[in-house]
């Protein structure tokens, strides 16, 4: 059953013309994460590799391709968590770096803190020799177009974008049964400067515990925060629910209690996994026993050999 990696590219409305890119992006990232695991790498190495690939892919709202703040800037959030030690690292509202997930990992590995924000995160990045990249290199034409559209008076950014672009993330369990999660995002379109969503908040954007499992979430950030979605799903698993039932319970509660939609990828230390969503779609992929699983629309579950080229 082990190892396993599951990846998501955002739980939102993905326009048909972009769903092909989302699909191939998550499959590619999953293959990369799985290769790390098969090579003896840890679940942490695998999730960071998978999310790095999605950050580098301009089709996703993370790293390059991130959505813009109301002022037209890129501010990114990311988190990683190690299920063995419960160690975690996060960055929020960080600018001008290509891979926030890697910086989050450095926060975990190289500091005694769990989260660094904004200028503090940038200062730390410089001290670690992480190169600063021009903001322009992170912004795509597609994103800039949506930002302009949402500046129009009467456009409601929260509703407009809810369902347009999502956070990316991954969970994994390695051959030793260690679980990990990673999540990364540019946030919500036209957000206020300094807005922090669920992604860098432990228990919300992600959580990992070797005793139970790992979760990475995506969807309406403020709703995910109100129900601490990742931690909630793991509470259900602690009570004996399966990965699928726990994920569905968490998502259903978020919908009924606070009216929020989203998606999750979940894994337990035995290698059971699920990719579930209450939004219209979520691009996801998983690799286990040399088989690639993937889907975008509700009810989809395609499989092929991991060796098959995309």
């Amino acid at each position, binding site marked *: 059953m082990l190892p396993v990696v599951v990846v998501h590219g955002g739980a939102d409305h993905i326009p048909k013309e972009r769903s092909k890119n989302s699909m191939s992006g998550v499959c590619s990232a999953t293959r990369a994460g799985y290769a790390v695991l098969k090579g003896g790498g840890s679940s942490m190495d695998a999730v960071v590799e998978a999310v790095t690939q999605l950050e580098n892919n301009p089709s996703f709202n993370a790293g390059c391709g991130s959505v813009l703040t109301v002022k037209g800037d890129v501010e990114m959030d990311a988190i990683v968590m190690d299920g063995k030690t419960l160690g975690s690292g996060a960055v929020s509202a960080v600018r001008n770096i290509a891979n926030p997930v890697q910086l989050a990992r450095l926060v975990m590995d190289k500091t005694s803190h769990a989260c660094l924000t904004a200028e503090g995160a940038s200062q730390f990045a410089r001290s670690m020799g992480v190169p600063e990249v021009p903001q322009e290199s992170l912004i795509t034409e597609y994103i800039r177009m949506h930002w302009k559209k949402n500046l129009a008076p009467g456009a409601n950014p929260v509703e407009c974008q809810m369902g347009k672009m999502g956070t990316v993330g991954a969970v994994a369990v390695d051959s030793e049964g260690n679980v990990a999660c990673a999540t990364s995002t540019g946030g919500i379109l036209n957000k206020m400067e300094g807005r*922090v969503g669920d992604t860098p*908040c*432990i228990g919300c954007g992600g959580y990992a515990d070797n005793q139970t499992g790992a979760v990475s979430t995506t969807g309406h950030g403020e709703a995910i925060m*109100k129900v601490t979605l990742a931690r909630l799903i793991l509470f259900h698993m602690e009570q004996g629910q399966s990965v699928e039932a726990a994920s569905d319970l968490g998502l259903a509660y978020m919908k009924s209690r606070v009216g929020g939609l989203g998606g999750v990828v979940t894994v337990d230390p035995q290698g059971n996994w699920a990719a579930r969503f209450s939004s219209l779609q979520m691009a996801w992929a998983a690799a286990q026993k040399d088989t690639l699983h993937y889907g975008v629309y509700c009810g989809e579950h395609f499989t092929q050999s991991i060796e098959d080229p995309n």
Partner: protein
Amino acid sequence: MSAVLVVHGGAWAIPDKLAKASVDGVKGAACEGFSVLKEGGSALDAVEAAVRSMEDNAVFNAGHGAALNTDGEVELDAIIMDGRTLDCGAVSSVQNIANPVSLARAVMEKTCHVMLMGRGANLFAESIGVATVPTDSMVTEYERKEWEKQKNYITGVMEDFNSQWAHDTVGAVAVDCAGNVACATSTGGIRNKMVGRVGDSPVIGSGGYADNCSGAVSCTGHGESILKVTLARLILSYIEQGKSAADASQLSLEYMGSRVQGAGGAIVVTPPGQWAATFTTERMAWAAVENDILWYGLDPNERVKEQLSRQ
């Protein structure tokens, strides 16, 4: 329906020279918060009032009296949460605001977001007419001296003093006459923290959580440990499973100690009016008011009772 308010002024090895002021501070804050409840005010109004009282009190590391980061600046975090709707507001690394808990409430009520940080939070404050306060007027002489002293330690030595670090975050939880619960937490963070370090206080589920279905919690202690176990949400998960407020707190704090070697404290209140103030650090300044009776303590197992004069 019985209204209850509980406050804490930080869980750490509070030195004797700060003990009386800390206890007086939490007693005053509890009474102030309770008077809001007595007049029929909401749990949300009550926790905000109690925490504001402690932010204004320089003996606590929140608002006035905050610890300094490694650059010698003040960076404040706060959270407030409404158990009825699960609405929440938080600010992190906001600079030079006298009452971060009120700014957090404004985030909740005036924006569609839950959390704002840094410059964005300061810009928001400006946009709603909240004044900026000069650093000097927020920082005590004591803090500045301690900060300079600590800057001269070698980092390795500092790590050993982890458990001795001041963790005097402040917080409050309440249940009002309508059975609604709320929580609020506010802090200046750890002395000499890295610039932009975010601890547990503004992170929902860690520094605090409130849900009418189970209760409200505010936490204090070693922030990074509280985050690792999402302490506030963990305590409420035990209450959801039928544990008492006291048992839920004890189990969760013991888990934090054994799993991640972290010490701290928590105050809890449930919708039927059960409450607890629990800590695994050497001391925690806390106070609670229920039925015109004021309870308070500092040392483990200390629980002093005082009748409040009826008005």
